[in-house]
């Protein structure tokens, strides 16, 4: 009797509900993060046991790793500062505009605009490579030669000056993801009577509507979109190398911190060093998220 009661108790225990998730979470997320932090103080080649080397990895990164300091960090920050906010604003305005058109047309356009995020950036990198191809057979180059009579085709993907901007364009093209859908749904759910009441109160201007009704009403979805876009931009790995044709892109153009970590982790197998790089990335991401919550989060 006692036993079965104890069993029933156990079945009712809240901890039982989170147990399956908690076990997996600890195994594949919590532990890996702690291990990565630990590994960042070691030298580890995946085969031999890690040897503790203190802060050497960090010292090396900040004093000797010119690719990291001159390319990866500035590229990552520039990339996320440009792609994050611009993509985010585009997502909001497109969502707002789509909310103004009739249902049927809206559905079609929403699907079209969302479609790049279904296919994923790496898959589409192959298509972009053909579009920006470096000889006259590339679509863009042949257009430039015909219309603006430039002399020779531009080596878009092999030239460091062009590669990074192209990478930004490609990312923006594909940045209408879940955040966009959430904002669209949020705008559609706003009570129409709010706008009518505002019109009676003398609101005439569309901009006033957006800033005083639309944005405050969908604040949760706005924050959701902001978090999604921050995570998305900091996790965009491998785009530069996929665009330039595999391997390291010319002069490390578009080389992000994530690429740097992957490079050290899985081509050179210096896991300790790669872990230190990811720890630094984590600090940067956390800083940016703090800013996002400052901007959009509601207190209490």
């Amino acid at each position, binding site marked *: 009797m006692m036993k079965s009661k104890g069993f029933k108790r156990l079945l009712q225990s809240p901890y039982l509900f989170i147990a399956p998730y908690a076990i997996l979470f600890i195994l594949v997320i919590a532990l*890996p993060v702690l291990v*990565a932090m630990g590994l960042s103080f070691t030298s580890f080649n*995946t085969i031999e046991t890690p040897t503790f080397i203190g802060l050497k990895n960090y010292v090396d990164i900040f004093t000797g790793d010119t690719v990291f300091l001159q390319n990866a960090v500035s590229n990552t920050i520039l990339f996320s500062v440009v792609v994050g906010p611009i993509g985010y604003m585009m997502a909001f305005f497109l969502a707002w505009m789509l909310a103004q058109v009739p249902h049927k047309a809206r559905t079609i356009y929403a699907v079209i605009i969302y479609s790049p995020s279904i296919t994923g950036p790496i*898959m*589409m990198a192959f298509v972009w490579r053909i579009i920006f191809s470096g000889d006259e057979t590339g679509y863009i180059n042949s257009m430039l030669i015909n219309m603006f009579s430039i002399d020779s085709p531009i080596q878009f993907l092999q030239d460091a000056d062009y590669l990074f901007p192209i990478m930004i364009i490609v990312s923006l093209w594909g940045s209408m993801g879940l955040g966009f859908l959430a904002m669209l749904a949020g705008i559609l759910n706003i009570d129409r009577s709010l706008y009518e009441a505002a019109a009676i109160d003398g609101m005439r201007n569309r901009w006033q509507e957006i800033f005083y009704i639309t944005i405050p009403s969908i*604040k949760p979805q706005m*924050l959701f979109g902001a978090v999604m876009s921050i995570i998305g931009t900091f996790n965009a790995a491998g785009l530069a190398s996929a665009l330039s044709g595999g391997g390291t892109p010319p002069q490390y153009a578009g080389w992000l911190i994530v690429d740097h970590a992957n490079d050290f982790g899985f081509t050179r197998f210096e896991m300790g060093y*790669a872990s230190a790089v990811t720890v630094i990335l984590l600090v940067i991401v956390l800083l940016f998220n703090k800013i996002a919550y400052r901007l959009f989060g509601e207190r209490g």
Partner: protein
Amino acid sequence: MEKINKVIIKEEKIDIKESKRREIISKVIIYAFIVFFAIIVLIPFYWMILTSLKTLDQIESEIPPTLWVSFKNMMFVNYLNALEAAPYLRYMLNTVIVATISTVGTIFTTIFAAFAFARLNFKGRDIIFMVLISTMMIPGEMFVITNYITVSRLGWYSPFSQTFGQALLALTLPFMTSIFYIFFLRQAFKQIPDELYLASKVDGTSDFKYLWRIMVPIAKPTIITITILNAMGTWSAYIWPNLVTKEVEYRLVTNGLRNAYLDLTGRVAYNEQMAAAMIVTFPLLVVFLLLKKYIMRGVSRSGIKG
């Protein structure tokens, strides 16, 4: 007196006319912008289809590249060649298996955990949830490095030998949990009124029964959304499957795209590569189109209260 009235009516008429005109102008601007953006989004897809239907000579020597291929010149044979270049049917089967396993796992863990965080009271609930949310910001590479080590230590991956079962374990393990989906589902659960829960407590219903009988059916749209998103995510997974599979046959669809598409003379066969990209992308687009309604229904409940 009458005169004044007339003037007011006249002014109102002008006002209505003016606002109607404004309405039309803003409609035109909005449509123009949306159509413009939609075209920009579609261009690469169009080029993908176009290139996949050309001959290699056309691609390499046409200056300027033509923007249309007539039906009788369409090279559907590229698709057959692309299918032969990599075991795509096998890849698709693998992808479907991996997607099923990881989605079932994800849904199972997510429903229970989201329920606990949304409804049950226990010590440390809010602190644990805060910790969970903050791990959402952790860059994926951080797990990838250690998960790679974990999977190799568990014996599921080694560069020398690996069975299909081991490959499946290695491929699905890191995708059984998602902080994001818990977050998503918790939000949906939270919108279900407390009264329902309290009433069921009075009736003596267990938490477990309440979860399955009441909360899951109500939150169905969100659960369906999670299912779809998770399955589609597997389809576009690229880095992880590449790392933890030894045999080429164990990989997933996107990995097939990285194959070198070379023709007999060693030229890169862009047309076949694009055909392969179409083969991989097309099912995803179709699935999204068919299930769009459900995705939107689930997403509409999302949002973060800071």
